[in-house]
């Protein structure tokens, strides 16, 4: 008997359009010229009062982009994107930046409330328990509207602001690091992002500082027809530590929305960056219509000795996910980690994985990837582990497991393992299976209902990754997985 019949029925019964966060906030917004041209780029750059070198940087990227061909190797299919039909600028209309939360458009605050980020509460919390504080750089469409905890972070010397602000206030830092991990011409979508990135977060942790709180950005795609091109740059100077949380929700729309972000992390000697993502963008309705295209380039550079970068992601949303958070292990003894849960249902397509590029001596990496596919979805793990000539004693352990629920979904594993150094030790294992009858039988025997049993087994399946998430996210992640597989898991 293939999968438990009841489970299949339940998965069928799940309407993916039960999307919890499907609403549109009606706020006046200002839009830039449609279409991808030098004019648009200049307009965008001028709008943000960017220095001349930045405008040139963007224009250079645009010229390169025009010469590039769209890649087609990923196991995803979608109609051709008309880049000239997109708006490259949208910001909530407000003349001046708000001084405090009171000045923020109440509708905007209400939106966040629906999403479960009560900004106001954050301020109250501030004085209570410093350890659990979360600083939110809220991104509503393209412009950072409100930044909390700035003052407190400033005391520690931490810079946490929008990229536009960083360009004005700390141009030298931005100039030094922007594009140093993901070069302008890295890939099609990264080049596009370099040309037209709207805004994003900038984080700089000075030498020896342990960031006093977890930093967090909630992305929100709101305006119709607005491609979002976020750019995030995080620099952890020598001996510092930062944990960064990124969470995403977007309202329900009929048209596909493009999201091509670039995230760059730089860890210098002895520094550590922990980057966690919960992604729950609109996956499309039950016919597979609409939904976000998530084509993201995320890369961390362990530039210094003994540095560490850890990616943790929970992917439940988006019609198409195409991302490979990677680590370049350049510094000796550096370490890269990748923990991922990718849940696909309905007509979702996920092609995701990681790259661990071992360049330095004694570098180590660990990859744990858990894919769950249900409905008519397709879920691909694609990863690269490579050890270069000088990467002696490099170590990698990879485990990627897939769980299939239902007969119409697909789960694929495409690992590339390249060793150019004899002392490098690589281990890779992957399994694909359904929930076994034995496991079910065992649970049912002990009095669990089928629902509970599946929930228990799936939770066990993803446990290794959930454990890596910061507390706040672990709860949200578990909730999201439940929503995504609603009906089949409790």
């Amino acid at each position, binding site marked *: 008997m*293939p999968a438990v019949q009841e489970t299949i029925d339940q998965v069928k019964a799940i309407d993916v359009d039960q999307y919890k966060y499907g609403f549109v906030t009606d706020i006046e917004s200002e839009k830039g010229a449609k279409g991808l041209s030098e004019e648009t780029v200049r307009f965008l750059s001028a709008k943000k009062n960017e220095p001349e070198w930045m405008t040139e940087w963007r224009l250079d990227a645009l010229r390169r982009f025009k010469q590039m061909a769209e890649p087609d190797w990923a196991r995803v299919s979608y109609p051709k994107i008309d880049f000239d039909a997109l708006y490259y600028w949208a910001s909530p209309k407000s003349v001046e930046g708000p001084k405090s939360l009171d000045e923020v458009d109440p509708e905007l605050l209400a939106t966040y409330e629906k999403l479960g980020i009560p900004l106001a509460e954050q301020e109250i919390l501030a004085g209570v328990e410093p350890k659990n504080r979360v600083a939110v750089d809220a991104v509503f469409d393209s412009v950072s509207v409100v930044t909390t905890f700035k003052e407190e972070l400033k005391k520690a010397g931490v810079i946490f602001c929008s990229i536009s602000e960083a360009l004005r206030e700390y141009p030298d830092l931005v100039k030094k690091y922007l594009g140093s991990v993901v070069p302008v011409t890295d890939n099609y979508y990264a080049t596009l992002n370099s040309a037209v990135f709207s805004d994003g977060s900038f984080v700089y942790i000075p030498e020896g500082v342990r960031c006093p709180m977890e930093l967090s950005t909630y992305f929100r795609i709101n305006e119709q027809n607005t491609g979002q091109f976020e750019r995030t740059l995080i620099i952890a100077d020598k001996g510092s530590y930062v944990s960064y949380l990124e969470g995403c929700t977007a309202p329900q729309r009929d048209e596909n929305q493009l999201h091509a972000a670039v995230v760059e992390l730089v860890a210098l000697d002895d520094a550590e960056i922990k980057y966690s993502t919960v992604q729950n963008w609109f996956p499309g309705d039950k016919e597979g219509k609409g939904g976000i295209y998530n084509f993201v380039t995320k890369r961390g550079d362990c530039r210094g000795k003994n540095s560490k970068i850890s990616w943790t992601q929970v992917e439940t949303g988006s019609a198409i996910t195409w991302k490979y958070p990677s680590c370049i292990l350049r510094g000796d003894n550096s370490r890269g980690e990748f923990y991922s849960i990718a849940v696909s249902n309905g007509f979702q397509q996920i092609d995701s994985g990681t790259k661990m590029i071992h360049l330095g001596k004694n570098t180590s990496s660990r990859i744990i990837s858990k894919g769950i596919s249900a409905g008519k979805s397709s879920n691909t793990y694609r990863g690269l582990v490579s050890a270069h000539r000088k990467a002696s004693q490099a170590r990698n352990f990879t485990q990627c497991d897939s769980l299939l629920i239902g007969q119409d*979904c697909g789960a694929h594993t495409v690992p590339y393992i390249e060793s150019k150094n*004899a002392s490098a030790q690589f*281990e*890779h294992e992957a399994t694909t299976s359904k929930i076994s009858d034995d496991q079910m039988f065992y649970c049912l025997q002990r009095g669990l209902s089928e629902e509970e049993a599946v929930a228990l087994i799936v939770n066990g399946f993803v446990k290794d990754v959930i454990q890596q998430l910061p507390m706040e996210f672990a709860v949200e992640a578990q909730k999201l997985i439940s929503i995504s597989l609603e009906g089949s898991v409790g």
Partner: protein
Amino acid sequence: MNASLPIKHTQAETDLIDRFDAAKAHLPGSQVIVGLRDSAVSQIRDKGLPHRRVEEYKYTDLRAYMKSGAPLAGPATLDEVRAILDAQDSYGDLDRYRIVIANGRFMADVSDAPALAGEGVTVTDFSEALSAETAADLLAQPTTAGLDGVLALNTAFVQGGVLLVVKEGAAVSKPVEVVHVGTGSGALVTRSKITVSKGASLRVLETFAGDTGNGEINAVFDYHVADGAKVAATRLIAGDADPARLFTTIATIGAEAEFKSLGFIAGPSFVRNQQFVNFTGEHSEAKIYGVSMARGEGVADQTLIVDHAVPHCNSREFFKTVLDDRARGVYQGRINVAPHAQKTDGEMMTQALLLSEEAEMANKPELEIFADDVICAHGATSGQMDEDLLFYLRARGIPEDEARTLLVLAFLSEAIEEYGEDDVTEGLEARVRDWLAAKN
């Protein structure tokens, strides 16, 4: 990208196109075969030889490797062939039947066709079969191969080979050695079709003797395993020849049948051993093994696609690679599970041992799964020799060289022994020892 943009041909590509124009009139085959040859050559003309931008050849850049394309070998004389056969020692005095394909042509005079007829096996010249009007299916391509460049080269130039048909229920008592002989006068391009009828069983030893001068070897073995039939195919590729050695196995497996193969590569510099295994009947099993050894600037590529198109089949893939000097090892394996191919059990393992600082290994074990009630797993490891094991042996008085030999042998033997064809185990293990001894 503009697909119609003409590519700039390499020397080898120019040579191959010229070779085709020169040989065209003499190559065997009916009108329909001529058509197939023409379109295969157009593929080479338009796309060139497969290169690293072609995903299946990412690690084995044939276009960069082939520097020239020598002409096809002309017919060999009986004396030449006899001399080479007498000198070769593929399996010593193992009791076996022999089929000889010399310089790409079947040679009845040195083959055991009459004795095989007594066992229920008919042997036919492949080049003669090609002249039939209905010969197109003799050059049929596996669906999983796409537009494979090595197969296109084979179709364009195929000179001959054999057709073996084992009749229903016949259990051939001795292994059949299909030996390719080259007299050093040029490229060999062959294709053989081996049909094992219902309930029959056959063991094949694919071997290669002599050399091909500057020309490549391109040999295709097309196995048809009918319901309840059993086949074990052992491919031994040894020697030090420089030209490209390209081998393809196609296996089509019926119901309740078994197909086993071992691809054994010892030393020649550029080998691509590719296999396309397709299940067409339920409750069957495929066991695919590989043992690769390479040194110098050698490349040993084992590529494999197992297509589970029907339910209830098992496949096991187990590959071992040992690399020395600046050699490169490649393993690309993919298990496809079609929708509704429920109860598939696939298990793939690839392990590499790197003996030198500069050796390189690329592993790409893939799973592509469209059915939910399946168990599929793959594993991949690569690393150097375990110093603790070496220390253990040396502490017991075993000299270092011998200890290393023992460990490499133990590592590779795992696959040879699991393959379980006792006839050949000893011979292959001796090959491993020879290969290791040749280092000094």
